[in-house]
C-alpha cells in the first residue's frame, strides 16, 4: 500500500459522505488515505506548469475542535490507521502549500460554490483547473456514499480516453471488479478498436475487461442511462483542446452533471499509477 490518496476533510455531514467514499476507494484499490484538515480557507498547489490557489468555502473550517476526532473515527471504522497531512511549507502565513506528489486526490464537485455542494451541479473552476493541470487522477465522489460494484470506462477516442482506459483497467484489476468499456459511437466501431490496439492496451483489455458497449449517438442524457448506477466511472477529461471544449463543451463535465456515480478522472497531464 505505497500509493496515497489525499482527501481534504470537511467536518460536515456532506464531508463525511465524501470521506467515506474516499475510504471505500482506498479500501478497494489498496491505497493509503491521507487527510488534510484545512486551518485556513485557502491553500496553494504548485504543479509543474501552474500554481493553483484553492479557495475553500467556510464549511471546511466547521468545528475544528472535533475534526480530528471525526476523521479518526471514520478511519478506524474502515480499518485504516489515521494519517493526517500537516503542511510544512507556506507561501504566506495563511497560505499553506499542498504537495502535488499524491497518486490520487479526492475533490468534491466544487470546492467553493455553496449552491452546488449537495446537488450534482457543475464543476467549480478550481476543480476544473486542478483536473487540467494535475499529474494525478482525481476522484470526484457521488454526493452520498454508495459502493460500486464494477468499473465503467468511458472511451471516446481522445488521447485522454486512452489514459482513462489504462487507469480503469488497472483499477479494475486492483479492486478485482468487472470492467466494461463504453463508447458513444461517433465513428466506426473498428476505429475505436484500432485505437485501443495502437495504444498497446488490447491484450490488457482482452485479459481484464469484460465487455465493450458501443452506444448509439442518441441524445446524451438518454445514452447515459445505460451506465450502471453502481459503477465507478473512469474517464478522460479536457483531451480535445481548448477550441473544441469551448465550442462543444466538455463531455466529462456533461457526464458529471448528469450521473450520480463516483468519477475517476484522468486529466491531460495525468500519469497513470501502477497499482
Amino acid at each position: 500500500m505505497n500509493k496515497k490518496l489525499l482527501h481534504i476533510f470537511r467536518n460536515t455531514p456532506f464531508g463525511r459522505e465524501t470521506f467515506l467514499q474516499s475510504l471505500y476507494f482506498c479500501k478497494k484499490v489498496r491505497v493509503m488515505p491521507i487527510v488534510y484538515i484545512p486551518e485556513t480557507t485557502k491553500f496553494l498547489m504548485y504543479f509543474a506548469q501552474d500554481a493553483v490557489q484553492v479557495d475553500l468555502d467556510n464549511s471546511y473550517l466547521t468545528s475544528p475542535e472535533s475534526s480530528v476526532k471525526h476523521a479518526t473515527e471514520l478511519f478506524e471504522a474502515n480499518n485504516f490507521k489515521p494519517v493526517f497531512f500537516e503542511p510544512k511549507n507556506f507561501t504566506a502565513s495563511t497560505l499553506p502549500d499542498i504537495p502535488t506528489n499524491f497518486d490520487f486526490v479526492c475533490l468534491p464537485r466544487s470546492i467553493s460554490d455553496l449552491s452546488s455542494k449537495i446537488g450534482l451541479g457543475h464543476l467549480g473552476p478550481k476543480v476544473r483547473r486542478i483536473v487540467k493541470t494535475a499529474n494525478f487522477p482525481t476522484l470526484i465522489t457521488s454526493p452520498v456514499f454508495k459502493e460500486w460494484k464494477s468499473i465503467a470506462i468511458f472511451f471516446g477516442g481522445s488521447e485522454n480516453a486512452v489514459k482513462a482506459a489504462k487507469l480503469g483497467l488497472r483499477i479494475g484489476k486492483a479492486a478485482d471488479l468487472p470492467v466494461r468499456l463504453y463508447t458513444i459511437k461517433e465513428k466506426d466501431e473498428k476505429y475505436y478498436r484500432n485505437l485501443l490496439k495502437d495504444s498497446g492496451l488490447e491484450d490488457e483489455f482482452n485479459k481484464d475487461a469484460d465487455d465493450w458497449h458501443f452506444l448509439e449517438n442518441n441524445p446524451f442524457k438518454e445514452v447515459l442511462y445505460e451506465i450502471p448506477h453502481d459503477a465507478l466511472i473512469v474517464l478522460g477529461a479536457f483531451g480535445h483542446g481548448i477550441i473544441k471544449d469551448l465550442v462543444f463543451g466538455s463531455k466529462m463535465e456533461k457526464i458529471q452533471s448528469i450521473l450520480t456515480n463516483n468519477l475517476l478522472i484522468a486529466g491531460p497531464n495525468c500519469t497513470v499509477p501502477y497499482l
Partner: protein
Amino acid sequence: MHFVKYWYKFIYYRIFRMDDRLLLIIAGSIVGICSGLAAVCLRQSLGAVLDWLHPFRHYWWALFLPAAGAALSSIYLEKVTKEGPGHGVPEIIYAVSRYGGLLRFRSSYSRLISSFLTIGSGGSAGPEAPIVMSGSTIGSNLAKFLSLNDRQRITLVGCGAAGAISAIFNAPIAGLVFSIEIILGEWKFVNIIPIAIASVAGAEISKILYPGHTVFVHQPFNIVLTDVFASLALAVITAIVSIIFTRSLRGMGKISKQVPLPFWTRAGLGGCAVGIIGLFLPVVLGEGYHSIQSMISGTYSMGILIIIISIAAKIFATSMTLGWGGSGGIFAPCLVIGSLTGLAFHRTLFALIPSLANAGEGAYALLGMAGLISGMLQAPLTGIFLIVEIAGGYETILPLIVVSSISATLCHYIEPASFYLKELVERGQLLRPGSDSRILSDLSIQELIDDSYVQVAQNMVLREFLSVIKESDKYLFPVIDEDTRDYLGLIQINTIRQYALDPGMHDMILLNQIMDTTVVTGTLENGLQELLDMMDLNNIDIIPIVENYKFIGMISKAEILNLYRRELIMQTSIQ
C-alpha cells in the same frame, strides 16, 4: 482544424522556439514592457488621486482617509482576490527559490489595486513592491503560456522585477541589479541579457507614455574629500535607522496580530494613526516622492528638529500602515527615511563645523537613501546604482560605495537576513541557488532509497535469522509484523553477536526480543536536510524510511553526499 494546428506548430517550433536565447530576449522585452505599463498605470492613478485629495488634507476629517483606504485595501485583498496582506516580494523570492518562479495570475493585478487604495488615500507605503509583484507575475504567466522550463520562467520573473524598478525610477541598471541581487540571488550569463533588455524596455515604455515625468530630476553634485569621510559616519547612522525600521515593521505586524479585531478594522486603525500624524507632518503621507525631490534639490525648508521627528514619524507611520494590514512596499518609505536621515546628518554636521566644504544637502539626501536601501534590503549594489542613476552621473560613486557597503555590512552583522528574506529564513524556506539546502531540496528522496534490505518477521527464531544473514550482504535487518507487515524495529548484526556465538540460544530467542525499537525513522515527507539533521542528532549514518507504518527502505549519509556531489556539478555547470 488540422491546417490551423499545422501552422501553429510550424510558427511555434520552427520560428518562435528556434533559439531559446532569442526566445527569452523577445519574451523578456514583452515582460519589461508590461511591467513598464503597470508602473505607469499605478503612478498615473496615484498621482491623480493624491492631487484630487490634496485640497481636503487640511480638514480634520482627513485623518479618516488613510483609514478608509487601508480598510478597503485589506477587504479587497482578503475577500475579493483572497490574498494575504504584505508587499509580495518574499512571495516572489519564495516562488523562485522553491517552485521555479510559479506565481498566481491574480497577483498581477491584486496588489496594484490594493496598494492604490492604501497609498492613494495617504497610507505610508511604496508602490514599487506591488509593481515588482505585478511584473514578475506577468513574467511567470507568460512563461507558462509559452510552456517554458523552470530556469527560463525564473529569468522572466526577474525580467518583470527589473522592468518594474527600471520604469519607476528610469533606472535600467538599478532594475537589472535589483532583480539579480534581490529576486534571483545569482549572477548568471543566461539571465543577464534578457533581464537587461527587459529593464531597458520598462524604462523606455515609461518615458514614452509619461514623457518628462521622471520621479526624480537628475542633480549633479561636486563631491569633495570631506564628503567621503563624512559618509563613514552617515553609513553607521543609516545602518542604525535601518535596523530600527526593520524591527519596527516586524514588531507592528506581531502586535496587530494580537489585537482581537476584524482584519479590516485593524487596517483601518493603522490608517487612522497615519492620518492623525499626517495632519501635523504631511511628509509621512503617501509614497513621498515629492518630499524626496525637494530634499535632493536642496529646497526642503523644515528645521533639523522637525526632520528628526519626521524620521521617527515616517518609521511609525509605515509600520502602522503595513504592519496593521495596509498594502504596499517599503522601497519608497526607505527612500524618504534615508533622505531625511541624510539631510539631518548634513545639517547637524555642518552646523557644528560650518567651515568645511561639502557637496550640499541634496547629495547627503541621496547618500542617506543609498544607506537605507542597502541596509534594509542588504543589497548594496542596488542602492549604489539606483542613486547613481537618480543623480545622473558617477560623481557620487565613492561616498555611495562607502555608505552602501558599510550600512549593508553593519545591518548584516546585527540582522543576518534582510527585511525581504527574514520571514523566509525564519521558516527555513530560503533556498538560494547554489546553497546546501537548495541542492538538497532538488534531490529526490525516492532516488536515494535503498529498498534491497531483507525484512524479517518478529517471530522468527535466531537460528532461522542466522541463515538469512548468511545469504545477505547487509548488516541491518528491518523487523516487521507477519500479519500487518508493519515495521517494528531494526536488528544490527553487531548487537546480536553475543547471542549468535551461543548455539544454546539459537532456538530460544525470537527477533522481537533482540530488535532495537529505539532507532529513529524518517518518512517520505521528510526533506533530505531534515533526514541529515536527524542522523547527526542521533549519531547514525543510515536511517530507515517508514511510511504508513510500512518499511520502505534505507537512506544512508554516503548516498546523500554522493548524489549531492552529482547535483552540485550539474547545477554549477549550467551557465
